[in-house]
């Protein structure tokens, strides 16, 4: 109790003294870590460039306006590719994520000591690695193109979808499952009647949520050669065609806003 009797008055403090000291020590440690990290980064920084940044920014901004509107004609096809990468990648992810999630969920896994750890490791690996790095690997192996993009998005999304899905499965109401099992239903029947109806809303929500994220991610996959509008972005930046760059950025914002609007609508309709 942080209440002490000091002579006649009862003194109240928010915390015990030892606890308070420990908290100050943590703050100190955190501060020192921050300063250390800052020094290490600043050692590798050429500060002259940083101080000159505002000139650079002004220069760049001036060269980016006005956007080159007629370049739009060449962008429709990449936009279509981008959409396909996101959508087909999401489909692919779902196909794999569902079984992985059932293997990973504590209450549905067929083998707790073999399949579940494997599924969990698979989920972590898929989530730890950004889709751009997946794309980098796939382009190195399969060559540049939309296919690498789709698979990259798919591989990255499997972990994400499976994680959210298996958490949803673990949170289902066991009573309903028990009731179905009590009717004498077989394993798959229990899944179909006891588990699936409970996770369908979560499943739909996760799909839309991930699709929205995938649209954003697929806009940049082209930077490493995996198709979509990022290819044009990369080419324009390499050629210093800044008026094209600004148009592409506008297109990306528009795509993201539209996809966000659509996913919000769908989520609304589901709930």
């Amino acid at each position, binding site marked *: *109790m*942080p*209440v002490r009797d000091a002579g006649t*008055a*009862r*003194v*109240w*403090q*928010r915390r015990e003294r030892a606890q308070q000291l420990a908290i100050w020590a943590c703050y100190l440690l955190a501060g020192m870590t921050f300063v250390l990290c800052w020094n290490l980064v600043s050692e590798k920084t050429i500060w002259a460039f940083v101080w000159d940044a505002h000139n650079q920014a002004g220069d760049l901004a001036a060269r980016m306006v006005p956007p080159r509107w007629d370049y739009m004609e060449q962008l429709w096809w990449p936009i279509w590719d981008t959409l396909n990468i996101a959508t087909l990648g999401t489909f692919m992810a779902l196909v794999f994520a569902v079984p992985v999630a059932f293997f990973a969920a504590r209450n549905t896994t067929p083998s707790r000591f073999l399949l579940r750890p494997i599924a969990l490791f698979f989920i972590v690996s898929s989530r730890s690695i950004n889709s751009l790095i997946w794309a980098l690997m796939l382009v190195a192996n399969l060559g540049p193109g939309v296919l690498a993009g789709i698979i990259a998005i798919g591989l990255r999304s499997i972990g994400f979808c499976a994680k959210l899905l298996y958490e949803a499965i673990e949170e289902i109401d066991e009573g309903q499952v028990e009731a179905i099992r009590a009717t004498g239903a077989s394993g798959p029947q229990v899944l179909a009647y006891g588990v699936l109806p409970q996770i369908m809303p979560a499943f739909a929500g996760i799909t839309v949520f991930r699709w929205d994220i995938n649209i954003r991610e697929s806009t940049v996959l082209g930077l490493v050669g995996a198709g979509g509008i990022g290819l044009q972005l990369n080419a324009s930046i390499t050629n210093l065609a800044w008026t094209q760059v600004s148009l592409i950025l506008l297109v990306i914002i528009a795509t993201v806003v539209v996809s966000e609007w659509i996913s919000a609508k769908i989520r609304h309709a589901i709930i």
Partner: protein
Amino acid sequence: MLRLEKLEKRYRTGDLALKSVDLEVPDGQIMALIGPSGAGKSTLIRCINRLVEPTGGKVSLSGLELTGLGAGQLRRARRRMGMIFQEYALVERLTVMENVLSGRLGYVGFWRSYFRKFPQSDVDEAFRLLGRVGLDHMVDKRADELSGGQRQRVGICRALAQDPELLLVDEPTASLDPKTSRQIMRLVCELCKERGLSAIINIHDVMLAQMFAERIVGLKLGEIVYDGPPDGLTADVLTEIYGEEDWEATIRKVEDEGEEDGEALDAALKHDHQAAILDRDRMAGNT
């Protein structure tokens, strides 16, 4: 003395919640505000400390006009009006002591309050209040660990820690069981008497209002339709306020219990410090 003159509130939706309300509450008076849901009771008391901004009329407390104060002055004025809330409205993740001390926020600077370094006199007063309501053994419990009645008593302490002249009490018993409701109402009234505070108690339960208040004001659709003593609440008056219903049972019951509780209230008024401590122990035992 609290005075409302032609107080009016129109919400942005166009609903007129208060229609030119005139009201005077003398110092030390306990007034109950009754009326059906949507009559404007909550709006009325929130217009007094301007948690809801009135759209017309004046509010003045002891001669100071509250409507038209700037932000800083309003803060200083709010210190003089303690408020007790329906669902207790304690900050759930703070401890009991922090909640009570938050009543002193208007008196201390930001950094003092940030580091929880309140003046010792404030802490003493907080302990005294918590002792008075029988909660001084729960100082370091988090507010969300308490029961409903306990939370409301912490809420009362927070309001009184402000050292107010006036208590604004918004449905104090709405989420409590009947017994705890009475205990809380009794506590509020006793504390008002001890400290000579006036109070506006906004309450659903007509019986409780009659039991504890000295004066009843009935509000209907933003207008005062009754203003008088508790025993003036006849079936006709209740019909006027709430609409057609068989009120006889309510009134008879109130009259029976009213006598008993009148005595209880008298006794409460005579409570000296000793009795207060006894009372506190009893409450602590009840929890």
